[in-house]
């Protein structure tokens, strides 16, 4: 993105022009994240908030179980690790579902002629601009036990009793899939649009079948788009709040709800919420770093 024409008009004014954005993001995002890191090492105040006293209690509570009174030998606490693990698993499955539906869709759209292409693309992007809360509520309305989906299938005689989709892991995955599908389609679309079809022709000339060409020629070429799409779906899914909260039940608790609960009312634990946020942020930054490094390697090659 960087680069572009350099003009003598703005030569040397770069810093001045960037200053507002740096100040706003620096003060109201970077400093808050740093503050959150500090809070995760403080002692909790029982009515929400913190006491300014250094403590590792938040991280200790996350990773270790010291019994009811805190005097037993520490063993690994699986509750929160389990919630993180389930979130990663859910986000991963949602990403896979987006890929399986998103790739053929992106390919199909990118191979239309330019006029119809933009209409297809427009159709895929519209739902993304509809309020996420409203989309999630709509999904809940559709798949709930007495909702239109079950009524329809019951009337058709396909099923004898409601599917019982709501409040399951599957419902959460469906919600995540529904929330972030356009994020998968758009980068893959961009990659396929740049794909050089003479590669497919060459493969066909060498007697490669349609699917072999897809697997051995096309997929490696459009891989950057696929990886970008997977990251764009996986990262927001991991910290999602609305889909697990509205579509899932108590058994489908995810990171977003765990963190939200710590700041709600007086039952919360701010340092613990801050610590859980730090751990989530660390996981996301690791994913992004691995991605950035691989991308750089790809570019230098």
């Amino acid at each position: 993105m960087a680069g572009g024409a350099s003009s003598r008009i703005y030569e040397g004014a770069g810093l001045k022009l960037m200053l507002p954005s740096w100040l706003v993001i620096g003060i109201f995002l970077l400093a808050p994240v740093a503050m959150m890191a500090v809070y995760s090492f403080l002692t909790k105040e029982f009515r929400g908030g913190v006491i300014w006293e250094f403590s590792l209690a938040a991280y200790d509570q996350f990773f270790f179980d010291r019994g009811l009174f805190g005097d037993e030998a520490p063993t690994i606490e699986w509750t929160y690790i389990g919630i993180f693990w389930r979130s990663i698993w859910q986000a991963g499955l949602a990403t896979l579902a987006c890929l399986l539906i998103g790739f053929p869709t992106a390919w199909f759209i990118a191979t239309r002629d330019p006029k119809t292409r933009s209409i297809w693309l427009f159709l895929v992007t519209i739902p993304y601009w509809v309020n996420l809360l409203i989309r999630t509520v709509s999904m809940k309305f559709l798949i709930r036990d007495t909702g239109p989906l079950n009524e329809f299938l019951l009337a058709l005689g396909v099923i004898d009793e409601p599917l019982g989709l709501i409040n399951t892991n599957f419902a959460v995955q469906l919600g995540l899939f529904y929330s972030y599908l356009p994020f998968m389609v758009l980068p893959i679309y961009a990659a396929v649009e740049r794909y050089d079809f003479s590669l497919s022709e060459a493969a066909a000339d060498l007697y490669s079948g349609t699917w072999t060409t897809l697997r051995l020629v096309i997929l490696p070429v459009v891989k950057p788009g696929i990886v970008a799409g997977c990251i764009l779906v996986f990262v927001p899914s991991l910290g999602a709040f609305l889909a697990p909260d509205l579509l899932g039940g108590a058994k489908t608790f995810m990171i977003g709800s765990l963190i939200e609960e710590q700041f709600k009312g007086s039952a919360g634990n701010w340092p613990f919420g801050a610590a859980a946020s730090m751990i989530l942020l660390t996981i996301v930054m690791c994913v992004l770093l691995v991605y950035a490094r691989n991308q750089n390697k790809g570019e230098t090659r």
Partner: protein
Amino acid sequence: MAAKVDLRRFPGFLTVTILCLFVLYAPLIVVAVYSFNASSSITNWGGVSLTWYADVFTGPEAPKFQKAALNSLVIAVCAATAATVIATLAAVAMTRAGRFKGKTLGFALINLPLMVPEVVTAVASLVFFSAIGFTTGLMTILIAHIVFCIPFAYLPIAARMQSIPDMFEQAAMDLYATPREAFKLVLLPLMTPGILSGFLLAFIISLDDFLITNFVKGAGVETLPTAIFGSVKQGIKPNIMAISTLMLAVSVVFVSLSWLIGRTGQDKKQAR
């Protein structure tokens, strides 16, 4: 070569695309249809009526939702305006000012709000405002919204800037325009489609936000999404479906507008 085959075609891809669109639209269409239901039950169909739309504007919950909608609108307009101004300056710097110290880092900083998970931004903002003793309310919501709107405003503006060669400004300068005139009379009009779509994008993103708003809103202040969420927690009622359908319509109008503006920009480019 064997029989002529279309290398662009894969069997089944059309079916998947149709399925994809079906999944994307089915819930929205179902809710839109049920919002016209005359029955007060959300399950049974009682004929077509506009009862619930009337309820949205005059019913017992109308004042609450109207106040929330007004809050949402004011915040979205202010946040999108501020973010667009900030992003425009940054885009000029990134595409016109050549190399300068901190450019790569600055670019990363602008995109930071996209990389930090939303729930983390929400927690960080709440912690920050409470640590510096800032009372949560409309102001804290506005500040938080400006931050995450910046990258969304920046992307279309920077994309537009990159396609404008700087010869126009050079020509203006050669004809003795001051830098200010060159910006106002030459660059700014060329940038306008990008700035408009940046503004619209930021506007929609601000209207859309639930999680961050919910953390920093403070007691008693509601935006439309937080008000809807609170109501949905007690069960989906028909008036919520009417509100949803109205918001759906607003989103579709805005996206279409943004799309059309983007297209006129493209057409001009091709005509040049």
